């Protein structure tokens, strides 16, 4: 039994590691063979078969930007509410927690349908970076809030009691003590949400759309990196090489955000963060 368990544990770990290595290696080898840095600075030609992905990178960044502008203030507010006001409003806090739990489980394609119905059609934004960013914001909100709230909960109780005993109001306490303390968690939560949003495809197909030209404003449609990969592999015959290259760019971006997360976590605020 002991040997069996040990064997199976090592076996599954080995298989998983092997598959990950194969997957990443396949994508890197196949794209590095033709990779050239001009790929990052050129416009896509003939449906993406030739040329680069410059406008697509810009669209992706714009979508992420819209998403973060919404998430950071609203998410921080909700996290503060959940952690600081749970004694005064237990019922509301309960409802909000349930809602966040449901939100984090809703399939991304349903977010896509919802974003299409609300932002594109009902509010008349059409296929645009606005629609895509706002849909993504609602989608990655739970992850951000959970990270920030867990962080705020590590603040020692004294930090709240001492200002009160000195006659400082709640607002002052939150503004000058809680929020500065929570700042690293906001950064970590932001980085995690960026990673989640970069990975998203299904919610963006019918909110931010397919157009692979350079977006002129936020109400233009813009194609995200993940959609570009999907489109090149499924709808464009002969788009494989560029799909490989785009996949590598996306993986590198995800690695960077993941690495950033670890670095922030490990070194910058070493003493405070316990996750």
């Amino acid at each position, binding site marked *: *039994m002991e040997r069996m*368990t040990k064997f199976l544990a090592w076996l599954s770990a080995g298989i*998983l590691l092997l598959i990950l290595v194969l997957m990443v290696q396949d994508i890197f080898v196949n794209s590095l063979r033709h990779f050239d840095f001009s790929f990052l600075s050129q416009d896509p030609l003939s449906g993406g078969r030739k040329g680069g992905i410059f406008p697509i990178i810009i669209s992706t960044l714009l979508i992420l930007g819209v998403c973060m502008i919404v998430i950071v203030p609203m998410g921080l507010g909700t996290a503060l509410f*959940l952690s600081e006001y749970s004694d005064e409003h237990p019922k509301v806090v309960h409802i909000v927690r349930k809602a966040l739990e449901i939100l984090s489980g809703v399939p991304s394609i349903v977010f896509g349908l919802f974003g299409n119905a609300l932002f594109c059609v009902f509010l008349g934004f059409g296929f645009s970076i606005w629609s895509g960013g706002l849909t993504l914001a609602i989608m990655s909100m739970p992850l951000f809030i959970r990270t920030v709230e867990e962080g705020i909960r590590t603040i020692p109780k004294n930090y709240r009691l001492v200002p009160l005993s000195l006659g400082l109001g709640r607002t002052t306490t939150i503004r000058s003590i809680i929020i500065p303390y929570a700042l690293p968690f906001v950064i970590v939560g932001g980085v995690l949400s960026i990673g989640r949003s970069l*990975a998203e495809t299904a919610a963006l197909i019918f909110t931010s759309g397919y157009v692979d030209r350079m977006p002129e404003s936020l109400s233009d449609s813009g194609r995200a990196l993940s959609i570009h990969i*999907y489109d090149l*592999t499924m709808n464009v015959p002969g788009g494989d090489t560029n799909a490989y290259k785009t996949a590598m760019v996306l993986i590198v971006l995800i690695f960077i955000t993941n690495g950033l997360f670890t670095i922030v976590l490990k070194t910058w605020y070493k003493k405070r963060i316990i996750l």
Partner: protein
Amino acid sequence: MYQLTKKNKDFILESVLTINGLFSAIAVGLIFIFVTRESLPAIHLKGWAFFIDKSWYPLEGQFNVLPMIAGTIFVSLGALILASPLGLFSAIFISFYAHGSLAWPFRRVVELYAGLPSVIFGFWGLMKLVPMLNEIRPPGQSLLAGILILALMIFPIITLNLMANFRPSSKKYYRVALSLGMRKSTYIWSILLPSLKQQIVGAMILALGRAMGETMAVLMVCGNIVKMPTSIFDPIRTLTANIALEMAYAMNEHRSALFFTGLILFLLIFVLISVADFWRRHESWKE
């Protein structure tokens, strides 16, 4: 908390934060309302036709969704069957068999699996896995391909959930068990896992929910033919893939039908989350 006098700005902040907090609840409500609103015409017009029509020919007004519901269920159950042992044993590996310096890197590997975009899984599946399956039995884009790729995507949920449960409460019992001369495996199989039954089921249900909602990966490797599968090598189309494929050109009744399938998914996942929540709420270690 212990504040006796409240200033005006404290009231303002409190109400602003409360309203802001309620936004998440409003968002859930909005999702439900909008998806339902858009699917009402189809429910109104077609009703039970969704389950008794001849097939899925949206352009001819035939909307039978049963083959796609079957596709979703087969592919996600299959993935769950593969992912459960993978998740369980990799959690055991990290918590008990990996030596200190190995545990952390391997944990990062599992987190990386969780963080990789589904479109990358789908892309790799289409480029490497599908041709391999095609050699065994054509066409390659099949239920099996979907199961294999999905299993890789959902096992981290089980691993990370179980590890969170392994860690905090079990250290004490583990030491006692070791001091009694038990072997690791005896401890794992007869003490740890039996006490975590509910949590394991909860994690599995969560993983199932994720598998059912997954779109891009299954869309790319499953072949997308609307037909009841008769073998594991048959191509299938899932509910999610169907929405992603047809939303681009769907009009009127067809569009509404797609929203209806989205509503089915939303409700299914809602039920699954509630059930998982119920299971995971159980106390894990009884003193």
